[in-house]
Every structure is written in C-alpha cells, then in structure tokens.
C-alpha cells in the first residue's frame, strides 16, 4: 500500500527522524492559514505540494513556491483540483521552503534478490534514482543490513562517508538507521528520502547552521503485514482507491481494472496473468485481472462476478479455474448463484478443471453454461463472444 507524503513523514517523525514541520490543507483557506503561520515563524517562502500517490507530480506542476500568504492562496487554488495522471488533487502539503545547500538521496528497500534490507545512498539527490543508477551507477552506494541484527553502526557510517557526509556523520548515521527502523516498525517495503538535504537554518541565537533533514518521504507498506498494523489502515487514501478495488479487497479478491471488454475470473495470480495474456493473444482485450484466491467458496465467486459486471465495458466473461485447494463445484455453485440475481446478462465461458471438476461440469450443464475444455479454447470462445473484439 502506498501512502501520502504527509503520512510517510509522520511515520519518520515517530521514529525520531529530522523532518521540517508541515501542515496539510484540504482547501484554499486552510492553505492560506498554514502559510501565514510559516511566514510568522520566519519563513521567506513556503512550498506547496500536491498530495497524490503518483510519481512525477513536480513535472506536472503539483509542487510550487509562494512568497506571501496571498501567493500561497493563489498557488493552492491552482494545485487543488488539478489532475495529475488521472488523480484529482484533494490535499496539499504546506511547509516552509528550505534553504537548500545540497540535495542527496537515501533509501531502505527490501532487496528480493538477496533477501535482505538494502540501504542505498547517493550524493546525487533530488532526481530520480533510476536515472542516477542508469547514468552513473558508481554514484550509488549500497549496503545490505544484517539479516539477523539489522543495520549495524559501521554499515551506516560506510554509507554516510561514501555520500560525502563526513561533516554530518552523527545525523547521517541516525537517519540511515532510522530508515531501517521505520521499515521494520511498520513493515514497509520501501522508505525513500529524496531529497535528503543539507539545509541552512538559524539556530536559537539567530546564527546560521547547516543541518541534515528529510525534505520528502516515500513509504510503501507490505500489504501482508497490514493486519498487524490496524492503525496504518487509516492511511489508505479513499480518494485514490477505485470503488471496485475496495469492494474486491473487502471480499478477499485481488482485482486490477484494465481497459478491455472481457472480464476474467481466475484462481491463482500466475494463471490469472496467463489468462489475460491468452485473451490478448486471441485478439481480445482483458477488462481486468482477478484472482479469487485459494479455496474460494461460492459467496466469494458471486462477489467476484458482481465486481466484473459492474464494469459497463464488460461484454463477455471468461472463468478459468484449475482446482487444487479450490473446489470446482463450489465455484460452479457461486456462478449459478450470481447469474440468478445479476441484472445484466453477458455471455460467459466457463472452464473448470482439477479438484471436483466432474461435479462442477454436471452443475454447469444443468444450468446451461457455455464451457470450454482447454485454456486456449476458453480464451478463443470468450474473444468470439465479446462484441468489442469483433468491432
């Protein structure tokens, strides 16, 4: 699960990381009041940032500076309601603009290939790390945390020195360890600070000091771990979750909406992807990825059918079940149940093999379903049945 920058920053602060203050505004008035508070506290400028979960918001015009409360109000009114890659901006973050001396990069990520937490640092921050990795791989330093002990102090120092942060050793080590601590505390897959920045600030006596701070934060959480972090569920942004996705999630289904016309219902992620691929190969366009999971009962199947049919573009449905832990007759019962109450009739091609396939076949025959023996045949029949593909 992706979370908004402001929420990610809250998690970092809770782990003791240095993040300059911010406020979240939902409308122009809140933005103005927030900006007034930052100016009153001595800010020369404020930065206003769209809170959306898609990348590239800066390029899209979703991050802007303002030098007065009036300007902040104007900027807020342009960013709020803006469309960034299909997402409407409903919240903005307001903060004092930092006086940046240097931008760097640091992240902690779950490295699948090595099965460990990987800490990455770079003296080249503020740009996309993939670009740095492609253009100048040596500019990124990588250290794997110990799988049993976590990130050790000397490992953190190694990264901090390699980033040229010798003058900020203590702060740098604290941030490096803090990123890994944040990952472990909330079961994050990724905690990324870009930019991590050396900023010029005034100390209590008004003297200029340089400080290392986290100016941005990106955190993604491991969905499998959410059940043990119920407080993080509140960070799920309802504005950015499609209603169909939410219904699917609540029904225990994995659903991803696509643009085509053929609704797919499959058990197992690999087989669901394959079914999509074969629909496409047969000349059709899948309307969705939908995995009913292992051991689905009739009610889950019926819920899946409702979600598929809620998409008005769907004009044919392909059901592909290879029973193992899932029992074919349960799926057949769910399909029959769903069809009895559905409001819209679309052609349905059903293929059920594996556990209890014979019982399923008898049920489907009695209910006059169109069936298919093989996966390729099922895909071809579904494409033929779909008007969208013929057009």
């Amino acid at each position, binding site marked *: 699960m992706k979370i908004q920058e402001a929420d990610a920053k809250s998690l970092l602060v809770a782990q003791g990381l240095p993040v300059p203050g911010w406020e979240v505004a939902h409308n122009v008035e809140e933005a103005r009041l927030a900006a007034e508070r930052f100016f009153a506290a001595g800010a020369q400028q404020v930065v206003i940032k769209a809170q959306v979960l898609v990348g590239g918001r800066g390029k899209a015009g979703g991050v802007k500076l303002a030098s007065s409360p009036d300007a902040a109000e104007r900027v807020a009114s342009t960013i709020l309601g803006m469309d960034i890659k299909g997402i409407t901006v409903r919240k903005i973050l307001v903060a004092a603009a930092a006086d940046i001396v240097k931008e760097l990069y640091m992240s902690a990520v779950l490295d699948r290939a090595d*099965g*460990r937490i990987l800490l990455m640092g770079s003296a080249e921050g503020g740009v996309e790390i993939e670009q740095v990795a492609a253009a100048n791989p040596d500019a990124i330093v990588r250290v794997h945390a110990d799988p049993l002990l976590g990130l050790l102090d000397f490992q953190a120092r190694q990264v901090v020195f390699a980033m040229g942060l010798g003058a900020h050793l203590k702060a740098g080590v604290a941030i490096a360890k803090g990123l890994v601590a944040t990952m472990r505390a909330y079961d994050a897959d990724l905690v990324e600070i870009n930019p991590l920045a050396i900023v010029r600030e005034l100390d209590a006596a008004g003297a200029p000091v340089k400080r290392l701070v986290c100016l941005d934060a990106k955190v993604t959480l491991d969905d499998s771990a959410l059940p043990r972090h119920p407080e993080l569920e509140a960070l799920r942004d309802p504005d950015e979750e499609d209603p169909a996705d939410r219904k699917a999630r609540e029904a225990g289904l994995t659903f991803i909406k696509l643009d085509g016309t053929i609704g797919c219902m499959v058990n*197992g*992620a690999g087989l669901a992807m*394959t079914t999509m691929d074969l629909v496409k190969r047969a000349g059709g366009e899948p309307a969705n990825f939908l995995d009913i999971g292992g051991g689905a009962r009739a009610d889950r199947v019926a819920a899946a059918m409702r979600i598929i049919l809620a998409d008005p573009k769907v004009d044919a449905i392909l059901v592909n079940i290879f029973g193992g832990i899932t029992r074919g007759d349960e799926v057949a019962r769910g399909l029959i149940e769903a069809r009895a109450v559905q409001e819209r009739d679309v052609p349905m091609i059903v293929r059920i093999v594996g556990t209890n396939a014979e019982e399923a076949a008898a049920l489907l025959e009695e209910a006059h379903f169109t069936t298919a023996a093989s*996966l390729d045949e099922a895909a071809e029949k579904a494409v033929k049945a779909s008007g969208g593909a013929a057009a």
Partner: protein
Amino acid sequence: MSILVGPETRLVVQGITGREGEFHSRQMRDYGTAVVAGVTPGKGGQTALDGFVPVFDTVAEAVRETGANTSCIFVPAGGAPDAVMEAAAAGIATIFCITEGIPALDMVPVVEVVRRAGARLIGPNCPGATSPGSAKVGIIPGSIHREGRVGVVSRSGTLTYEAVQAMTDAGLGQSTCIGIGGDPIIGTTFLDVLQLFAEDTGTEAIVLIGEIGGAAEETAAAWAAEHLRDIPKVAFIAGRTAPEGKRMGHAGAIISGGAGTAASKVAALEAAGFRVADSPLELPTLLRDAGYRG
C-alpha cells in the same frame, strides 16, 4: 530419480490438525508419501488421519520419534515463520512452507536461520513439490502428474498445474515438479532448483515457468546458458500483457521502473537456449522441437 522429495522422504506436517493441514495430509498419504508425524503444539499424544499418524507438541520430538526428514507447513501466517525455524532447529533437511500472506520482513531472518542450520526452505506461499510415482509434499493435485524425466520449476501454483497437465496429456512425464512460491522473499530460487536438476540423473529436460517481476528468471537463465547447455529446455512467462506499476496478485509480480518485464525474461531465456512458449499448452510441442524424446 528426482529432487527434494522421493521415496526417502519421511514427512512431518506442521499444522496437521487444521482444516487444510488435515485435508492435504490425507492427499499426500494417498499419493504414497510417508507421512510419519504431525505437529500441533498442545495436541501432542493425539493422532491424525484416522489414528495412523502420531501428533507431537514439537518438531524435535517428531524427529526423535519418527525419523522425519522433511516438513510441510500449513501453520497460519502469524506462526509460520516460527514453524520454519523450529523445523530447521530440529534438524529437518527440507522444509516446505505452504502458508501465504507472511509479511516479507518476517522472512528475512528466517531464510538466514535456515541457511545457517544447513537446511533448505521451499516457499513460503508455494504449492510444494511432487516426484511422480514416489511422493508429493504440498497441495499440488496428484492426478495431474505422470512419471517421467522432465523437471518442472515454477513460481506459481495453479499455472504450474496447467503446465503439468499439458505435459501429462501429451505423454511427457515428470521427474519432479516444484513450485518455489510467489513471495518477494523465498528460500529456494529458480537458480537453486536448476542446480539440483543439473545434478539429478533422472532429469533429462527442463520446464521453467516464470512471471513478471524481479530478476530471478534472468539469473537462472544466465546460469543455465553455461551449465545446462545440452539439455532440452522450455519456458513460459506469465504477465506479458500486464501494465507497469500494477502488482499482479503475487507480492513479487510487478513491473517497476522498466525492470522485471516479460520481454526481458523472454530475451534472457531465449539467449540461454530455452524455447519460450506463448501458451502453457505449447510447452510439450516445444520440448519435442528442442529434441526431447522422453
């Protein structure tokens, strides 16, 4: 001949008294696997599978009393990492973890603990392995198999069944079929399994079934190019039409930043001498084209 499971397998099922554990233990025994023990803490002294299988409180006891050398774990996600480490500590050599939904960071120390114990973990979130004609461990339906000499390795569950069924229907039997699991952190990779198949005299051809995300297929392909040059090899990659940035069910199956695409995997496999199928149903034909006569 086979790898990981076979006639020497003496299986302890952790979580044998649960719904799935009980059901699949029965299936495994009916297939011919020596299910010698079950473990459910607090139920030691009871029996499972109609009185035929003793249940112990700990894996250590099960090993001591029955000589179990392989474990199959059906424990829910909250307790599964501990169950894996308990098996490793008890001296179990081969540990299959079927459980899905384990938080990825929980598996990081577990994989290390298993490695230090000198054991092998398959999974989590995997369907297990079958060596047709001798034993199956996990949840793969026994009926889809046929004895033979093709080694099958896959990241998926039901997609594996699909491919194996296609092989069996075409008369191509299997030495061992293994699902390594779709999670980001797993104990045994494609590369590990290819290395085992390379050593196995009973395996004369390879089927690799991958999916988008990560680079495990590419890594395995690079090794196969050098070490499995003369053996017929075919592959299938799921997710060719998956859009970037969307996680396709498996925690591992996502294309991000242009990495992990099906195109990259297909190219790496073809460069390594694999014939790559457009549908799982084409795998048997391609294997014949590659010169396999088994």
